[in-house]
């Protein structure tokens, strides 16, 4: 994905976060969020291997071999950070103490189902912490490209890949649109500048309800 697209998605996710929120960002695109937190908003980031209060990546040569995030990247700790074991870390997640998790997706559907951990017969990397994150976080945001490399919609009526969790996604933020999972169905709330509503509808296999106050 082009850098500006990634940045735009990250910036849009960041708008959802409030001062004091506890947030876990998945590997890849979701990490872009951290670069766009508005001034004055203090958000605390968890890495599920066992830290609350991660800081930016260390300068080259400053890496500490014992300081990594859940993606294996080197991190730093901010003042007020705490280390804990992975059971407590997942207790934070599963117990609903985390305000947001932002995760990538292979597929997401209009019922809030998410598939992001395996493609049968191709690659089975394992679910890692994703199932717990999607099951437990107060709000689950999916960040992804709207269509796959072949141009097929990743926003579906029903996921066809093995699920990560059922009915837990609240918000889907893609390069094309922002969609909210509601009891009535998938609500198209925002369309990116370079696309029309029609573009989004055509690129989306799921049924979309167009919001009255569409932006």
């Amino acid at each position, binding site marked *: 994905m082009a850098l500006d697209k990634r940045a735009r998605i990250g910036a849009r996710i960041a708008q959802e976060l409030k001062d004091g929120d506890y947030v876990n960002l998945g590997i890849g695109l979701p990490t872009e969020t951290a670069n766009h937190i508005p001034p004055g908003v203090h958000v605390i980031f968890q890495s599920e291997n066992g830290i609350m209060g991660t800081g930016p990546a260390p300068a080259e040569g400053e890496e500490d071999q014992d300081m990594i995030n859940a993606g294996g990247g080197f991190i730093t700790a901010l003042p007020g950070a705490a280390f804990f074991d992975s059971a407590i870390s997942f207790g934070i997640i599963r117990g*609903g103490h985390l305000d947001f998790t932002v995760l990538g997706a292979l597929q997401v559907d209009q019922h809030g189902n998410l598939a992001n951990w395996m493609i049968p017969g191709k690659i089975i990397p394992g679910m890692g912490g994703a199932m717990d994150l999607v099951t437990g976080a107060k709000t689950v945001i999916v960040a992804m490209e709207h269509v796959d490399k072949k141009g097929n919609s990743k926003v579906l009526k029903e996921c066809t890949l093995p699920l990560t969790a059922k009915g837990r996604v609240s918000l889907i933020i893609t390069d094309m649109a922002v969609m909210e999972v509601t009891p009535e169905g998938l609500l198209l709330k925002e369309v990116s500048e370079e696309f029309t509503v029609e573009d989004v509808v055509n690129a989306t296999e799921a049924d979309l309800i167009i919001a009255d106050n569409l932006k």
Partner: protein
Amino acid sequence: MFKQITAAEAAAMIQPHSRLAIGGFLAVGAPEGIIDAIVAAGTRDLHMIVIASDWEDRGVGKLVVNHQLKSAQVSHTGTNREIQNQMNSGEIQVELVPQGTLMERCRAFGMGLGGVLTPTGLGTVVEEGKQIINLDGKDYILEPAIPSDFALICAHKADKSGNLVFRKTARNSNPIMAMAGKITIVEVDEIVESGELDPEAIVTPGVFVDYIVVKEA
């Protein structure tokens, strides 16, 4: 992130029929200031989840003496004659829970688990009315998570990120109860700057903490 409040403000959040998970053991590590404020507020029909019912004049025993409890889940009542009287008269409904089971059931709620399987209590009155699960030839009692509306705990110090450290055996159930409430209120001796507590020595991370009351001198 937590908000700093007074003990009276903490007590005012608590309503009749609130379920309170309270830290401390035999009044050591009990949030005495918050308990005193609840006594002062006089809120009744409370449910208490705590290891022991302490003494008549210390710890949660004061809530008993002031007739503020409708029911309780505790593992030990032997140090408090008043709760024994109220149990006998039917004023308070008490579920006696083995201490280790109580800890796991409270922890389970805080950690989003539905419950745990334990051998403790098998073949005793504790298993009555409970589901017995056999795994690989061994029986276990299915002990469900204990939900609570408020966790009321006591810590030694907090930092401005809400991280907590405890002091000696006053730690006891406090880190467990800290995770076990929908809303967690902590009474501390003092609040220090973020970064002043060793991040390796923090026992309860601030993410579990909603409100902090600084103990009055």
